[in-house]
């Protein structure tokens, strides 16, 4: 414990440097804006701004990009409460009761509860991350290729199991992403795979063009501008304070949402979206007045908003400790670390303590910044929502092009981004979730290398995955999840995932 505190102090010495504070602040501001604006989520925001961090060192880069991620969870609630449009996907559940509170003239109170809940959840998440990540990383040092291959299989199957689309759809997307990750030179044999004599494809398809295309451009193509209205009224500062009754009603939902969100966040999948849904369902289930849900229940705002913030922090645990991305956002953050020459995983704590602890300490500071940004300055941020979408989306397209081109100065990457935008548009039309595709693309090199090394180690025996205790345990978890999915399918039982899909489909975008 003493060692943890010493390390955390080292982190704070990094996080309180004025230049690092500036980049944390920039990340929080951009994250709040990204969360508020419909049409760009945290993934698109991080991907577009990734090239901007190339001139920075790894610590500042990851602090700024992570600030965008957890800042977007704060910002998303503003649009949901004031306009009933989820600024980003995790805010879908906040739309229901947050907007109903706004209709009753309690918009300020709803914003305040959302911000305070987010702050408590975010801070709890960082404390838990501080405690859990280093020992988990130390444990993961025992992992060899079979363990890593098994861990990535579990991650993909968990993602498929947690997804609101069907298991086969999610695994199909993951396989497609893994296949895209095979493009380029095979590092073990030197073979060119699917490069079609295009030299730029020799290094493979980049994560940034795919992520920006699918989530940035693809979202814009699916959002016709005439559907976006910008009728919004900013609450006055004096209206922001909830009543004593509202504070009382929000206390326990914040506590429950925080714990639930963090646990869900560690599990692979679109954790921040799932956690807010589960928290809403839990609050409604245990409420003494379930009939108030949908009509402005305070718990319907406090629970989901706390849960999605705790989940976004929880998602950093497997990313930092195991090098396992739990979703597309952490996948792109991992890519950012790799670009800066810092591989996330068990060795991160020992080999790059300044990056690891500086990043964790910056999250404590970032949560404070976001509380300050999202309460007194909400009136100023709301003005951004008044920019007509017709002006906003051309600018986003411009930043998509700049962002992708600047990574490698390759026009092929920009064409890939455009193609992926069209693919993303079509995938949405046919009810595919593009997130597993990005995840597959990110883990493809590690997965292939681990799988092939495992087979070489065992002289071709697949049983190696069941002979070593850790990988055997992970394979049993995978099998269990597949059995659970099969049972759910055979029983034709509708569970929370179907309800989540319905909730996502019924909310305006």
């Amino acid at each position: 414990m003493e060692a943890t505190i010493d390390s955390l102090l080292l982190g704070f010495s990094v996080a309180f440097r004025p230049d690092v504070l500036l980049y944390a602040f920039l990340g929080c501001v951009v994250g709040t804006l990204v969360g508020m604006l419909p049409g760009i989520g945290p993934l698109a925001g991080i991907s577009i701004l990734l090239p901007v961090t190339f001139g920075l060192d790894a610590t500042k880069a990851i602090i700024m990009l992570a600030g965008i991620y957890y800042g977007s969870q704060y910002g998303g609630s503003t649009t949901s409460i004031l306009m009933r449009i989820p600024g980003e996907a995790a805010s879908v559940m906040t739309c229901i009761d947050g907007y109903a509170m706004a209709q009753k003239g309690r918009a300020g109170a709803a914003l305040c509860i959302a911000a305070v809940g987010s702050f408590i959840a975010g801070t709890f998440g960082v404390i838990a991350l501080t405690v859990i990540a280093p020992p988990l990383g130390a444990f993961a040092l025992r992992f060899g290729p079979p363990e890593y291959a098994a861990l990535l299989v579990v991650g993909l199957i968990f993602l498929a199991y947690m997804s609101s689309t069907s298991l086969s759809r999610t695994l199909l997307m993951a396989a497609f992403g893994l296949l895209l990750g095979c493009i380029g030179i095979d590092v073990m044999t030197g073979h060119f795979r699917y490069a079609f004599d295009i030299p730029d494809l020799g290094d493979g398809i980049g994560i940034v063009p795919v992520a920006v295309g699918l989530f940035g451009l693809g979202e814009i193509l699916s959002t016709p501008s005439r559907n976006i209205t910008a009728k919004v009224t900013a609450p006055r500062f004096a209206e922001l304070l909830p009543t004593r009754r509202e504070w009382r009603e929000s206390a326990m939902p914040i506590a429950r949402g925080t714990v639930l969100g963090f646990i869900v966040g560690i599990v692979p999948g679109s954790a921040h979206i799932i956690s807010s849904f589960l928290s809403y369902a839990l609050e409604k289930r245990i409420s003494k007045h379930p009939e108030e849900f949908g009509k402005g229940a305070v718990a319907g705002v406090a629970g989901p908003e706390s849960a999605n913030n705790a989940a976004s922090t929880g998602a950093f645990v497997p990313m930092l400790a195991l090098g396992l991305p739990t979703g597309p956002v952490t996948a792109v953050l991992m890519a950012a670390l790799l670009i800066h020459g810092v591989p996330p995983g068990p060795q991160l704590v020992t080999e790059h303590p300044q990056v690891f602890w500086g990043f964790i300490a910056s999250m404590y500071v970032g949560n404070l910044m976001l509380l300050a940004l999202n309460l007194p300055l909400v009136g100023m941020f709301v003005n951004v929502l008044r920019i007509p979408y017709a002006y906003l989306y051309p600018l986003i397209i411009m930043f998509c092009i700049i962002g992708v081109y600047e990574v490698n100065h390759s026009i092929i990457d920009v064409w890939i981004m455009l193609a992926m935008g069209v693919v993303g548009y079509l995938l949405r039309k046919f009810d595919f979730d593009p997130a597993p595709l990005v995840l597959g693309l990110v883990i493809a090199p590690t997965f292939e290398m681990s799988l092939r090394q495992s087979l070489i180690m065992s002289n071709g025996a697949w049983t190696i995955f069941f002979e070593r205790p850790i990988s055997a345990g992970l394979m049993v978890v995978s099998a269990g999840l597949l059995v659970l999915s099969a049972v759910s399918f055979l029983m034709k039982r509708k569970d929370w995932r179907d309800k989540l899909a319905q909730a996502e489909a019924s909310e305006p975008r």
Partner: protein
Amino acid sequence: MAARPDDERSGRRVILRRDHIAGGVFVAAGLLVLAMSGDLPFGTLASPGAGMMPKLLLGLMIAFGAIIVARASEGPPLAEIPWNDFTHAATVVAAAAVAIALYTKIGFVLSVTLLLFVLLYFIERRALWRALAVSVGVTVGSYLLFSTLLKSPLPPMPLWY
């Protein structure tokens, strides 16, 4: 909707559903790429070749695509997919494609100004002067921001070489 003659004779109508296309496209694409993968050696389990992973993944892709087709009757009919945003999406893609094609040839400022102007004036029907001012202002501002402040130069116009 599409109906096969046999089904019409037997009084049944087969409705083409969303997942017939969704799964079918992946099965077809998987088979096509598999056919193109002949030069990639699979190797053996003890010594996996460059083609092992892609071929396994293609097999999975085809299998999952086939499952989606097999369960297509549970999904909505193809005709129910809303395409009301298609024209907007297609024009945005076309405008972006032209801008990307010109990006390194005529430089960032000209190609992106053109892109923004087309999107604002022709697609979004904004006033001429406002569309022009926003296009030029935003593009030049971004160019200066990236080339001076962020030290990450964007493609210059040919005359600037």
